[in-house]
């Protein structure tokens, strides 16, 4: 089965399924569970939003999937099947071939995710070349095209710049360009627009919606912003304390939230704070 690189998209095939995932951290005080028994799936062309507060386990869930857990973290139990294979069984080399090429990812801190000693253009070219998609002058041209596609002004000039020369918004867009350059089947994005200004955020979300429309890009979007959820999600999974407490299609979740925590989140996002009692 060929997924990714945007040649083939079957809109209904399950691309990613996470089954009873439990991720723990070994600490001096013993084992701490960050993710407990979490299951969900993402189909081709679909956007699943993972919602929750900091510490709810949503980022660790995302990192478990691409096997980039921080030191001390490990998957204790469960299966993560992407493109028909359990990624937890893959060798590091096989995982590297998937990471970047079939699963693109964008993290929250664009300064740490980019290599400070290479230009933005170099880093996009490197990804394209490593995964054997294009090389040489074509790689440079595609890198510039991607920077233009994510709304970086003067992409030819910016491609020759280093991460520290870009503003936060431009860095985040460069990172999204990097994540999309290999035309992955799945984009995992952890708060991709949180650090951006409202108008830039709107542009980036627009771009992601456009890519989903045109190429059937599937997305696992980790966010705490229910405004972003309402604009992007097909389905929503709400996380609390390392577990998914509710999962529903986006309209159902907003109109008929079942779990008390989901109701709290919705009230916080749209309720009138004049009516809210200070507390907690």
């Amino acid at each position, binding site marked *: 089965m060929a997924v990714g690189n945007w040649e083939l998209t079957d809109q209904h095939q399950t691309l990613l399924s996470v089954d009873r995932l439990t991720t723990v951290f070994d600490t001096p005080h013993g084992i701490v569970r960050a993710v407990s028994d979490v299951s969900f799936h993402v189909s081709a062309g679909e956007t699943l939003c993972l919602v929750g*507060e900091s510490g709810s386990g949503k980022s660790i869930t995302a990192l478990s999937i691409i096997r980039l857990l921080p030191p001390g973290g490990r998957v204790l139990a469960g299966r993560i099947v992407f493109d028909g294979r359990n990624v937890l069984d893959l060798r590091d080399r096989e995982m590297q071939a998937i990471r970047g090429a079939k699963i693109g990812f964008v993290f929250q801190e664009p300064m740490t995710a980019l290599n400070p000693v290479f230009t933005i253009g170099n880093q996009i070219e490197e990804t394209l070349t490593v995964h054997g998609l294009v090389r040489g002058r074509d790689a440079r041209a595609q890198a510039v095209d991607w920077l233009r596609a994510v709304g970086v002004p003067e992409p030819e000039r910016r491609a020759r710049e280093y991460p520290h020369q870009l*503003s936060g918004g431009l860095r985040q867009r460069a990172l999204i360009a990097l994540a999309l350059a290999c035309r992955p089947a799945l984009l995992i994005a952890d708060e991709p627009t949180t650090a951006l200004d409202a108008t830039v955020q709107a542009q980036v979300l627009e771009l992601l919606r456009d890519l989903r429309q045109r190429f059937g890009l599937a997305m696992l979007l980790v966010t705490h912003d229910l405004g972003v959820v*309402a604009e992007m999600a097909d389905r929503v999974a709400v996380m609390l304390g390392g577990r998914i407490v509710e999962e529903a299609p986006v*309209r159902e979740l907003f109109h008929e939230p079942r779990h008390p925590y989901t109701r709290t989140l919705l009230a916080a996002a749209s309720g009138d704070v004049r009516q809210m009692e200070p507390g*907690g």
Partner: protein
Amino acid sequence: MALVEVRGLTKDFARPGPLFGPAPIVRAVDGVSFDIERGETLGLVGESGSGKTTTGRCVLRLIEPTAGEVRYDGTNVMSLSAGELRRLRRHMQIVFQDPYSSLNPRMRAGDIVEEPLIVHRVGDRDSRRARVRELFELVGLDPDLGLRRPADFSGGQRQRIGIARALALNPSFVVADEPVSSLDAPVQAQVVGLFVDLQRKLGLTYLFIAHDLRLVERICTRVAVMYGGRIVEIGDAGAIFRAPRHPYTKALLSAAPVPDPDARRQRIVLDADAFDRTSPLREIAPGHMAAI
């Protein structure tokens, strides 16, 4: 008379330039004027780099403006000596954006809140301790937590400590510089609720700096929109949100994601060439000004 009057506030920063020769100048705030009436909340919105934080700090003279005038209750803040300014600071306080870096991690929460009272020589040890307990209760914290250090508190609780500290001297005017933007949504709502509550109880006047428009809509009486160091639109919150006039305000309002999957979205893309960035503010309706 307005409690705070700002006229022609301007701040230039020197950017690191070539080794020799003059450093290039960046005008972060460019001739900003506004009034804040007693007991009202003026929201200052704009994107990063628009000059909103610099404006807030210049109003308190935490950084020295390059030009312009700030009057607090009729007093010209810019002409005060250091000692006079320190005395005035009892009335003008600030809550910072990041409750993680703005609290000294080595100090106990109670000492952090007490510090302004010591600096301004208010009361004796016992009365200060009593005041600290009172402040903890005021912001919804257990007074017995005063012996803990910032690391023992959650983000929302830390911001409450920052608020208690800002209120220690009983100020009338508080600049809140993105006070909830680093907090999770439900905690944001609680802390915003606290700001509203405190205003009602203590009759505070706020300059509330934010980039989240939904938040501003909920708590502000009036709103000033900044773009490129200038105010491009100012007026009653209701008027700005219902009928924005400046192209930038329109783009900004249309960009905010709406937490409703059925909302009709019509995004207005900002065309930076479509408006004259030098055009002055003019009154387009009573109390509503736009630079168009």
